């Protein structure tokens, strides 16, 4: 660096101005990040806020931000949602378990010890996901009625499992593909049969992937509305149906609806927040290591 006289010295050294740029850049990104984050979150925040309002404060202009919060709507929701949340829980848990039971061996048969036509099978499963179930909803009702499954929690378990199965197979398969070939070779040379291969080599690697898969299945099953709306009445009605019934024909309902929406969404939101990384792995199909 050449000598600098006081007269023509810049206000800061180049290194300092780079730091300043970096800092202002980071401040800029922080501000932008928070603005965007909050903007996306506002509807959810508003939902939760409104859930604590008394009805009279929920449909006002301008919208009220200060009010005396009350749990009265939550209490009403709590009292009314019993059977619905029970059905949702059973349908979600049951279908997820069923999916994992079916998908694990199938994924194994499409990755580690693949069948001859593994591509065809994989594409068949994915193609069923692309076929809209909406097209068959009338006949589905009649089939369910005739097989005594209408308005039954088993029907939901069966259909939700079919709904999530292709995705689960694809996801678990891609997680299984990550099992290092050398470990499998080593196990085989050791004389390990299929069982040992699965338990000792595959499962430890794949288990986090199973968690992500289960998470995705739980999200889709818990939130499912269309099949529940068309095929259940009272004995298997799920949380989305409870939400719909929170919109009455007459009377004030916004605070009650917000409370119901909050209670319905909170389980999945909390789980999703905690298992964020797992969610990202799952959503990117494990195609991203």
């Amino acid at each position, binding site marked *: 660096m050449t000598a600098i006289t006081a007269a023509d010295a810049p206000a800061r050294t180049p290194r300092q101005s780079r730091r300043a740029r970096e800092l202002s850049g980071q401040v800029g990104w922080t501000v932008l990040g928070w603005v965007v984050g909050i903007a996306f979150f506002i509807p959810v925040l508003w939902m939760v806020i409104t859930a604590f309002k008394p009805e009279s404060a929920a449909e006002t202009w301008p919208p009220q931000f200060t009010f005396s919060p009350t749990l009265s709507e939550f209490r009403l929701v709590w009292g009314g949602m019993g059977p619905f949340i029970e059905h949702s829980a059973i349908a979600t848990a049951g279908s997820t378990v069923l999916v994992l039971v079916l998908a694990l061996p199938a994924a194994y048969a499409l990755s580690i010890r693949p069948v001859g036509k593994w591509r065809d099978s994989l594409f068949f499963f994915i193609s069923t996901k692309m076929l809209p179930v909406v097209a068959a909803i009338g006949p589905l009702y009649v089939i369910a009625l005739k097989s005594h499954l209408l308005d039954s929690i088993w029907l939901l378990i069966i259909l939700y499992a079919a709904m999530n199965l292709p995705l689960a197979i694809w996801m678990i398969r891609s997680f299984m593909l990550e099992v290092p070939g050398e470990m499998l070779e080593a196990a085989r040379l050791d004389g390990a049969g299929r069982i040992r291969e699965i338990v000792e080599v595959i499962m430890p690697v794949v288990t986090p992937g199973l968690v992500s898969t289960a998470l995705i299945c739980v999200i889709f099953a818990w939130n499912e509305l269309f099949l529940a709306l068309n095929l259940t009445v009272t004995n298997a009605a799920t949380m989305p149906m409870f939400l719909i019934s929170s919109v*009455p024909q*007459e009377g004030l*309902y916004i605070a009650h609806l917000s409370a119901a929406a909050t209670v319905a969404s909170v389980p999945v939101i909390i789980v999703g927040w905690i298992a964020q990384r797992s969610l990202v792995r799952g959503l990117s199909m494990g195609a991203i290591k």
Partner: protein
Amino acid sequence: MSSSRFRKRKLAVAGCVAAVVMTAAACSSGGTTASNANSNTGTVTVAVVSNPLITGQMIPLTQSVFEKENPGITVKFATYTEGDLRAAIEKDVSTHSNSFNVVMIGPYEAPLFAKNGWLVDLTKQYVASDPSYDASDLLPPVAKALSYNGDLYAAPFYGESSMLYYNKTLLAKAGVTMPAHPTWTQVAAAAAKANQPGKVAGICLRGLAGWGDNMAALDTVINTFGGEWYNQSWQAQLTSPAVTQAVNFYVNLVKSYGEPGASNDSFNQLLTLYGQGKCAMWYDATVAATSIASEFPAVYAQTGYAFAPTDKTSSSGWLWSWALGIPQGVSDQGAAWKFLSWATSKQYDTLVAQKYGWSAVPPGTRTSLYSNPDYTTAASAFAGITLQSIDSTDPDHPTVNPVPYVGIQYVDIPQFETLGLTVGQQIAGAIAGTESVSQALQAAQSAASAYTPQELSGSN
């Protein structure tokens, strides 16, 4: 060998899952057998409309009174909004899914379902042998509308006609006085004067798509302007001059002096708006008076009542009743009747009065209610006009010109379920401004003309 053990284990798992699913499917509920009609135990699943008189009264009272007096009977409620309720009930009853043992229907469904043999004949099965029910006490127009071949097929829970509510304070500020039997022309002029854009709507009217929503109000306007859905030869009349004039009147009235976003509004939203003082006038069901009284006491004190506005006819109010019926072939019919007769009895009215006050009693079902001094005093503001409105309805002759169908704010044919919705959607589009009234009526006319006269009349 480990691999064959592995394979067997897989097979075993698959077999177990399949077996469990099959057994559960076979054992689970769904189909039923029509059971003893006289048991006093069982589960009664009731499909009801989501409405303060039901969610705020019938359901709590069932839990606190009925179930305690009848420990062997459990009552489950499935609540829906009106459009969804109709669809769910008709789907259930027509496919004999037997998910509901009591259904809440009205004068549209009762005769049609009875004709198809889908409902239990309440007169023959129960009422004839149960004098305490006092079916002769039921208001004649209401009972007649719920009957088929002289027998009652659904017991009314509440009955209603339509009338005009107005906020006396807001109208006075605009210098308007409202006569007891106004014409639509007078009402439109009053709305123009009382309208304060952005603050108060001159008149609040239904716009939500649905034959029980916007079409209910619009049909009464069509009738009183001299229009009809079909002429005597079952030719659709939706583009006739009378209907065009009526629909243009209604749509323009809503667009000029009605509430914003009207195409999404029905009873629910308008009750709130009116109760918050945002409507100078409101044309809707007579039963709204009961809700205004209990939920918006301040505005209730300022409310005046006028008969449904007319044009060419002397009265124009609609006739509706939410009533309870029992589908054929369901289980626990005895328990179902026990619940149904309890909820539509005089004793139920007294229960409501004790808990919520006389003015909150479900109106429009029994003559004895209107001769009860307790009721007529507490509901003095609206009891008289409600009764007179109901009494002046004649669903058999709803229009100026003779028509081959029955029904004031509906056409009592099976095709109307979807036709009414389709036309309602078109009208909602016209109100929202996404299409013109003539486009809406063209579309409505072609929908109504899609059926042959044989199809339409064969169902009568």
